[in-house]
């Protein structure tokens, strides 16, 4: 009994290592796009991979890559209201837009599947994609310090008011 368990643990460790060796580069890039910060991306990915490892014996033929990606998305969606991601290639997008853009355009997840994973209607996913695409194409990436003031929607509104309204939104979403 003990030997069988040790053999199973050994096999799991080997398979997991092979999986990480193949998938970590792509997943880490996705995590970096989401968080915009390499250190935070690494933390996020380590946590997601750990959950995949814990579920390894009960995957029942499910793709571990899909599992880890789902875990990554869920974890990011849970933490993004507390720690706003900044910087990176998608610096001008909101956390939700980042998540949808990475899932749809970088990972190539189908619209319906992304909608099911995030618990949103498919039309909403499409709308977020369109908005994010137009935001990303509208202007070339600017340094973060300038981009906040240059936003046309913010003109005429004091910065402090904008920040407080943003925080209010965050609370409203986090509350339920």
């Amino acid at each position, binding site marked *: 009994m003990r030997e069988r368990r040790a053999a199973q643990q050994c096999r799991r460790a080997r398979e997991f290592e092979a999986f990480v060796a193949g998938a970590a580069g792509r997943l880490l890039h996705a995590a970096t796009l989401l968080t915009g910060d390499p250190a935070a991306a690494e933390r996020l990915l380590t*946590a997601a991979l750990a959950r995949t490892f814990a579920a390894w014996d009960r995957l029942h033929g499910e793709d571990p890559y899909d599992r880890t990606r789902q875990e990554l998305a869920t974890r990011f969606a849970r933490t993004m209201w507390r720690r706003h991601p900044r910087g990176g290639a998608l610096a001008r997008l909101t956390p939700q837009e980042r998540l949808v853009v990475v899932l749809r355009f970088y990972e190539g997840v189908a619209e319906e599947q992304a909608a099911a994973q995030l618990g949103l209607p498919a039309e909403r996913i499409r709308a977020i994609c*369109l908005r994010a695409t137009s935001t990303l194409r509208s202007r070339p990436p600017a340094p973060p310090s300038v981009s906040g003031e240059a936003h046309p929607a913010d003109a005429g509104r004091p910065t402090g008011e904008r920040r407080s309204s943003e925080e209010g939104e965050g609370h409203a979403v986090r509350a339920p």
Partner: protein
Amino acid sequence: MSLRDRGQDEVRRMLDGPHPLVPPDLAARAAERGQRILARRHVLRAAGWALLVAAAAAFSVWAAATRPWDVPPAGTTPPLEGW
């Protein structure tokens, strides 16, 4: 190719920038953390079973001591005295 597809392709190219370097000990750290999750689950399950067994044992002892299925002595009949 429609205008929308072109826009999406542009975004895809934007996303496909330089890939970050994967730290060599990532798999080991993730595996260690996953092992900790498994161990924690194991401990929680063991504690749950222990609690269940303890509750069952406590109930048995209480039931054997008080015998709640016995008919309680009738309080309405007056005690028989004076024979």
